[in-house]
């Protein structure tokens, strides 16, 4: 395997958890809910996936457990912000702090243990094609799920009636309610989907990326995913591009260090957020495009009158 191949493969591995968490959050935000707890749900998924995989010996059951824990954590958020109309920003921040604490507690006995790695796909002939073989046919299974998620979410949002309904709720929940659309039910489902994606992204970290459990192993990736959604101005295809860009930056940073190039690592770590700020400035110039893509109800609780 050549150097280029290796770098490209690691970029894909680094980008996949960002992509999955961000695509989930994109659906949540399109419904008008801002869940800042992505980091918390992700780290819960990471610990849940690792612990269950270790106990059962089966990394696939670990993946399911990661998703389940992500959904469970998101349900807490959904109950507080949707049913009780609590402040979404404060609740989301609390969820992150809760997730980091609870995951440390749950994973305490598993720190430093060798984990179960989800194996890469290996198709006999196809994987041996130079360069594109390993890149397209030799990745880990979650990589393929992440690509399918982008296509699926894109199709769902812009080609199906349910997707149109979801976007309409994010655009104006009062109008949606007046038309008889069950606003709260859609938001619950969207938040749970976001939780499932964040959990899966966490599971990818502890079962594929670095098959072990370390406290706070998400290391801010949840925040990058949140920034990505804005960076992508709520478009699934742009989330894909952004995730790979940010993934490439984080890998480039490692190689730069190895080659002794003096780029401050802090600058590179800050890059996703700087890029997001630049994008925010740029999109605010185009008011019309912003209005079409930005969920106008983002972060605003809805209480139906009865």
């Amino acid at each position: 395997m050549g150097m280029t191949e290796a770098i490209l493969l690691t970029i894909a591995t680094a980008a996949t958890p960002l992509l999955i968490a961000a695509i989930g959050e994109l659906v949540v935000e399109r419904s008008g809910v801002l869940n800042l707890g992505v980091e918390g749900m992700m780290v819960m998924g990471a610990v849940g996936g690792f612990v269950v995989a270790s106990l059962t010996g089966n990394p696939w059951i670990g993946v399911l457990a990661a998703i389940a824990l992500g959904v469970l954590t998101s349900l807490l958020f959904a109950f507080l912000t949707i049913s009780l109309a609590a402040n979404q920003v404060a609740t989301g921040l609390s969820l992150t702090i809760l997730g980091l604490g609870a995951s440390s507690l749950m994973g305490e006995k598993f720190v430093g243990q060798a984990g179960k790695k989800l194996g890469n796909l290996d198709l006999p002939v196809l994987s041996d094609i130079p360069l594109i073989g390993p890149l397209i046919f030799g990745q880990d299974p979650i990589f393929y799920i992440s690509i399918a998620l982008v296509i699926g979410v894109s199709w769902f949002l812009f080609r199906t009636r349910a997707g149109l309904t979801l976007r309409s709720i994010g655009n104006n929940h009062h109008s949606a309610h007046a038309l008889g659309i069950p606003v709260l039910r859609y938001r619950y489902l969207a938040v749970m989907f976001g939780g499932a994606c964040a959990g899966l992204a966490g599971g990818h970290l502890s079962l594929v990326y670095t098959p072990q459990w370390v406290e706070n192993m998400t290391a801010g990736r949840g925040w990058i995913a949140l920034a990505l959604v804005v960076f992508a101005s709520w478009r699934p295809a742009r989330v894909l591009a952004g995730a790979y860009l940010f993934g490439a930056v984080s890998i480039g940073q490692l190689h730069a260090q190895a080659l002794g190039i003096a780029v401050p690592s802090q600058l590179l770590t800050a890059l996703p957020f700087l890029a997001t700020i630049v994008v925010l400035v740029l999109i605010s110039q185009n008011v019309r495009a912003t209005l079409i893509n930005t969920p106008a109800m983002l972060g605003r609780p809805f209480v139906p009158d009865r």
Partner: protein
Amino acid sequence: MTQTGAKHLLQLEGISKYYGSFKANDRIDLTIEPGQIHALLGENGAGKSTLVKMLYGSLQPDEGRILWQGAPVVIGNPAEARALGIGMVFQHFSLFDALTVAENIALAMPKDQKLSDIARRLEAISKEYGLPLKAGARIHDLSVGERQRVEIVRCLLQEPQLLILDEPTSVLTPQESEDLFKVLRRLSSEGTAILYISHKLAEVQALCQKATILRHGEVVADCVPANETTLSLAKMMVGDDIHEIAPRNTGSESAEVVLEVKGLSATGLTGFETSLKNVNFSVRKGEIAGIAGIAGNGQSELFAALSGERATAPDMIKIDGVPVGHLSILQRRKLGAMFVSEERLGHAAVPEMSLSDNVVLTRHGLEKDLETGPFIRHSTARKIKDKITEMFDVRKGNEDPPAMSLSGGNLQKFVLGREVMAGAKLVIVNQPTWGVDAGSAAQLRQNLIDLAAEGAAILVISQDLDELFEISDRLATMAEGELSTFVPTGETNRNEVGLKMTGVFEHAAGANA
């Protein structure tokens, strides 16, 4: 129809809705026949909206029953209402800005219909009824009138037997209203019943065959509008407390100019707002100048520029000859100018703050006893609050309640009082009586007239033509950011002003242009 012709289309029997101890609707009976245009008449807060929300399934009645074509029904949600054949055009539109016309309409249609089919059908039906629409246009690119068309076409596509319209003309020019009436009359002749909600008496008389009048949540009368006079209808609607506006002397031509606006231009704040294009006018001592126009034609920008919420070039706006375009709101207030903005809650007053705290917000720096160093003197604030509530008859639940607990009319009286009590030289009011009950509205108008009589120069920006004709000495119209020349109110009429609302007028020439 398979039913016998004798059956009513819709019958409400003893419908009641409570909010705590407050009766929003109290044993309402209402009968609508097929093909009939039926008016539901009442003031703001009389319970009209509550009643139609129950008809459309957005709310559930606490008591009573609804009969549809003779059979009792429970309308659990709007989808069920649409399935029965009830369509609704909302007052504050239920549209989605970011979506296209076709997508907006699809959201109210059964799930198995394809977007492309809906697009084709909506363009066909909109053409047939003379309501031209493009399926692919985004809502936020459409005018208010076009948005209403979208709502109406959305209902028509469902082939409703009953169409409910909530205050449909409040956003239309008189000419657009006429076009709407044509469509409604045609629908009625085709057998569609229409429930027409309004507080505008003239149009109810022109359009509706029957009327049910609500007051304080109760039905006070059923009548045939054509057999009534406007005055008798008004009396049924508001009870006996109709205020007659006292006649007065109009401001004189030679009085000194207090507000002068020259070549005022401004770009829109968000890029969607209509910008101001070379606006010129002046307001003299002792007169009321009125600016008419449909919402969103630059009135908000004009108010923002005059009040100092948005800075302009210094010379564009002069108060008493002093260039103020660059000055802050407080600096303008110190020159004797007072501003009452359109939104009472959130703009003119902070909803959660007490009335006395709201006094401090606009009176600080003007009243010398209100502050000691950096500290507020609450006792002075409360005294001012007491004076305002007494002089302007503000009715409130307790001593110093939060602004949001007051009714619209009472809060508006308070806000106006707070602004003008200090002896204002210039008062600029945006939408003085929007969403205010008739009693308070009459009092507010009288207050403005009294202020002018005491020598203040007053500029009223309003969408209510009746109001402007009632109180203003001179009238101008805003359309797409341009202002027509002012003409004496006695020398113009509603039709002329309505035409100007569409932008057909000669521009006021700039003195320095």
